[in-house]
């Protein structure tokens, strides 16, 4: 066969592969939207569940997921961004730095359910937080940490060295250079990384299974030490644990969760592409 024909065929094959990857994604989103949109009414979003969760709303699950995401953000952002600043600006290439990088790669690869076990062992039992928002948020925060550290470090490294040199030449200390010059420049990249990390946390189920999630709790949590319902766990519960659950309620819950996560994703990518186009270096 003529090699140009081979090439033509090969390219067709490659684009087919890309289609096989993309079409199911569209199908997933499309199905959830089409089948779930009928459930989305004000009551569904703002009321407590009734009738063994078959009717009413998913309000406590929505609030729970937002609270857990907020808790994760509060715990993970300072540590993650701090760690990234250290790695990008201060750390020299020693065996210790390499060990830290190795640890970060490994943290990123630990299965989510193992994070759940760990959170249960450390926060719930050892530190006696009980199954609580505090324990769940901290578990999710540790899971999110590697994503935040690596994206924030990348954003910091992308700021040209000249920015630091000029700051130093004007008499600024190293910290002033980082605080007033480098960080603001890297901020859009850092925010993107933080949102991408948090959306992972918002959608995770396994780490919150034994650390915070409540099967059925038709009220809002009162304190950090309360259990709470959460969207991903709620979807798991109503799709596997409760017989006779109306399909529309299941798809409605999936849609709310998907909408939350995808909109965070869109915000993150928009920030990134907006600032990438606008930056002066």
């Amino acid at each position, binding site marked *: 066969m003529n090699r140009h024909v081979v090439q033509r065929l090969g390219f067709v094959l490659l684009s087919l592969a890309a289609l096989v990857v993309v079409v199911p994604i569209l199908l997933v989103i499309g199905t959830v939207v089409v089948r779930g949109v009928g459930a989305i009414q004000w009551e569904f979003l703002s009321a407590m569940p009734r009738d063994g969760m078959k009717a009413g709303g998913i309000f406590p699950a929505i609030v729970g997921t937002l609270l857990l995401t907020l808790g994760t953000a509060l715990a993970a952002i300072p540590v993650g961004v701090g760690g990234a600043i250290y790695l990008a600006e201060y750390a020299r290439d020693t065996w210790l730095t390499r060990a*830290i990088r190795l640890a970060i790669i490994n943290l990123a690869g630990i299965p989510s359910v193992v994070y759940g076990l*760990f959170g249960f062992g450390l926060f719930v039992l050892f530190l006696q937080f009980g199954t609580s928002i505090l324990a769940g948020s901290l578990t999710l925060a540790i899971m999110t940490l590697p994503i935040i550290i690596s994206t924030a470090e990348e954003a910091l490294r992308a700021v040209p060295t000249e920015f630091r040199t000029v700051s130093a030449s004007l008499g600024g200390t190293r910290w002033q250079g980082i605080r007033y010059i480098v960080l603001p420049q890297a901020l859009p990249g850092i925010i993107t990384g933080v949102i991408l990390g948090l959306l992972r946390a918002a959608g995770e189920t396994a780490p919150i299974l034994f650390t915070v999630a409540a099967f059925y709790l038709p009220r809002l949590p009162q304190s950090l030490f309360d259990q709470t319902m959460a969207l991903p766990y709620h979807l798991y519960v109503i799709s596997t644990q409760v017989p006779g659950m109306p399909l529309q309620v299941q798809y409605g819950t999936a849609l709310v969760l998907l909408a939350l996560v995808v909109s965070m994703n869109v915000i993150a990518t928009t920030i990134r592409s907006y600032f990438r186009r606008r930056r002066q270096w």
Partner: protein
Amino acid sequence: MLGFSAIGFVLLIFFFLLREGLPTFFEVPPGNLFGTRWYPTFDLFGTMPLILGSALVTVTAIAIALPLGVATAVFVREVAPDWAREILKPMIEVLAGIPSVVLGFLGMTLVAPLLRKTLDAPTGLTALTGALILAYMALPTIISVAEDALDAVPKSYRDAGLAMGATQWQTIWRVVVPAARSGIVTALMLGMGRAIGETMAVMMVTGNAARMPLSLDSLFRPVRTMTATIAAEMGEVAQGSTHYHALFGIGVILFLLTFIINLAAASAIFKKRRRGGLR
């Protein structure tokens, strides 16, 4: 100081897993622990069906995802027109963000019935269903890492290939992809780590029967993975019981497995960094 917290957390995680999981290895004789039957109510803690279940689902998932992922990465990096790239990359990022419980839910309600009909099987909740869902969960990792690897191949390689009279297709498969080999191996590793650790989707679609997947048709029957076992049974188990320790023991095995996989992936990354370029 904050940077060191990463090491601290890895050690802390390992410590707490061991603290709760290590007793298993004293409480349960090894013959039982690595036996073929997992029936905790009868004090049978054979982890083999779970380990093999995880292996079956993971390997099948990667067998689907690797060719598909590498082909997509090549398409995106080497062939696709700009508009196609602008659509594909955000789509893949969205896929990476879809919660596993949503994919598991759709696997249950859409994929499983479809498979049951086409295969004429008693149930659609099989190892294959799990592998299909897992393949799509591993794809974003494989695609983005493989794409980075292709990206790092210098343009001069491609120019040289084309200048020798090779077609673009020949250049891609005989020059560019071989040059990006180690990066593609990293992609494979990270994708595998992602697949083996996935919990919710797998638990929802694989049927969760703890049986040895040894016969040829195992792929079309229910299996149970290590992750699903922990997630499903941890809630009901009495704290401090042998069963409880056994679940943490499985956690230790999982931790070590992913640790090794990631170490291998990381060493590939470090090696090419030291050589001063991505080869």
